[in-house]
């Protein structure tokens, strides 16, 4: 924790993420307008700034872009967090079992991971959602699947290194069960690198979610998501460029926050980089 606060990028990342979480929770309170309310006479309105009624302008139906960005943060964060959580749990379990048990089980798990990695990950996510049908839940599922291999690999390599340590042998000598050794003693020590991958996975998950929604495969109307806002903005690219600019900036800053946090955590975990 002490090191965490010393890393500039980790702190900046945490601040960005913190702001975002507050925005997502309070979205309806701080939104200047009802994000669903249409104002057809004022559609495609350019941003008016803080002096006007619509700070970031309006969309094709005259709905307030700023309010929609604020509320849209929920879907992005929720989908990314759930997908990352699922890939974290499954990835850590699979990676730990592969590394600890070894042999045929290890070979099987790693070949399946190779199989997932044989596809460009966005393409695989698109193909999965196209098969099981569009929607928020299916998008989460697809994102979780394509993010599992990174988690499995890092957990497995940590477990492989740690299982030769003396404290593991001590546990075995004491007659502790393998499950207990693996989950109570080894995994605790893998915490830091897993957290780095989870943080970077969050960033990727936000991007993939936006991509799926942009292609119409993620959140469906009337759910507001940043990716869908970009898809609407694309239709009005000549007349209302603000409809694509601002939701995209929201994505950039969110992903930036998680990347900064991930980078910072990695630097902390690597003593060679500490103090640079």
């Amino acid at each position: 924790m002490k090191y965490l606060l010393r890393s500039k990028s980790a702190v900046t990342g945490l601040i960005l993420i913190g702001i975002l979480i507050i925005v997502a929770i309070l979205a309806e309170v701080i939104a200047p307008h009802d994000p669903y309310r249409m104002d057809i006479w004022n559609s495609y309105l350019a941003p008016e700034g803080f002096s006007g009624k619509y700070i970031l302008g309006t969309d094709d139906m005259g709905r307030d872009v700023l309010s929609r960005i604020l509320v849209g943060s929920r879907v992005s964060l929720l989908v990314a967090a759930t997908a990352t959580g699922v890939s974290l749990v499954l990835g850590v379990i699979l990676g730990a079992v592969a590394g600890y048990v070894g042999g045929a089980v290890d070979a099987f798990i790693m070949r399946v991971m190779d199989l997932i990695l044989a596809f460009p990950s966005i393409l695989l996510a698109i193909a999965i959602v196209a098969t099981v049908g569009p929607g928020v839940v299916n998008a989460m599922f697809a994102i979780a699947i394509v993010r599992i291999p990174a988690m499995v690999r890092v957990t497995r390599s940590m477990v492989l290194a740690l299982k030769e340590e003396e404290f593991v042998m001590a546990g075995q000598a004491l007659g502790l069960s393998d499950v207990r050794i693996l989950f109570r003693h080894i995994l605790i020590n893998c915490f830091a690198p897993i957290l780095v991958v989870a943080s970077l996975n969050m960033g990727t998950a936000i991007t993939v979610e936006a991509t799926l929604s942009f292609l119409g495969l993620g959140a469906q109307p009337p759910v507001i998501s940043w990716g869908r806002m970009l898809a609407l903005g694309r239709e009005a690219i000549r007349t209302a460029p603000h409809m694509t600019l601002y939701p995209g900036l929201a994505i950039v800053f969110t992903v930036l926050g998680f990347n900064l946090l991930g980078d910072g955590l990695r630097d902390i975990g690597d003593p060679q980089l500490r103090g640079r």
Partner: protein
Amino acid sequence: MLRYIIRRLVQMIPLLIGVSIIVFLLGHLAPGDPVRLLLGEEATEEDVARLNAIYGFDQPLPVQYLRWFTRAITGDLGVSIRQTMPVRALIFERLGATLELAIFSVVIAVLLGIPVGVFAATRRGSLWDYVSMIVSLIGVSMPGFWLGLVLLSYVALHVPWLPMFGRDASVFQGLWVLLTQFRADVFLTGLRHILLPATALGVSMMAIIARLTRSSLLEVLGKDYIRTAQAKGLKYSMVVLKHGLRNALLPVITIVGIQFGAMLGGAVVTETVFAWPGVGRLVVNAISQRDFPLVQGGVLMMAVVFTFVNLLVDISYALVNPRIRYE
């Protein structure tokens, strides 16, 4: 070396079989009966059963897979439901455009990313260092397709020389015409069209390259032989380029290879934004039209290309670093 290549090729076979199973299942699990889709609402039960028998849909799943696989291996990927054309022809028509876009993006990323990294590393701690690293961090965090939309609305709309959509001519073909017939028109047409999509697709890779070049070069510049070279009285720029950069580029080459695959994935969406006539846009359109043979063929093709690119990266890396061959 030859043994290493053969071993890697043999290892690819089970992987590609696995890929084909996944692609087959993806097409199969898709909701909606393709036969009913094809025959329309007023088809009788007998018609449906007859067509099911013709297509072999009445057979057990493993049998269907084997039939599909043996045909796929000979290059027969079926017929597109909507375009009533062989899937293979549709894909090969567009594969060149996708590869060209990806390769051109990599070229832009390398040509811009490495100098930025060198610039930042040699001015470590300066304002320029901070600015270029912050900009590249933002570049890494940016969805390429959004950058594409921004480039369209804020650049292409205001610069008449840059078209908003389409491809019109191949830039590599244009380069060939330029070199053999000394005519620049084809090359310029191709260049005008590819510039914006390739930038949108290449920015994240450029940012990754810049960051990696910087950190790798910083590490190398701290080595003893750099001090020796400087002590010999060589100019600093000479030391950086000849002794430093040369040794710092190995990890950069690796990441270029790894990222090339991500380019193929990113191209799927970038092509949609710029109406680029590649495989990615073909697949996205096929998805919205529920044309599953085409989706299957496109995804399979991309995965196969991706696997071969990874193989080429591994082989070239083994060429540079002999230790890998014996692992």
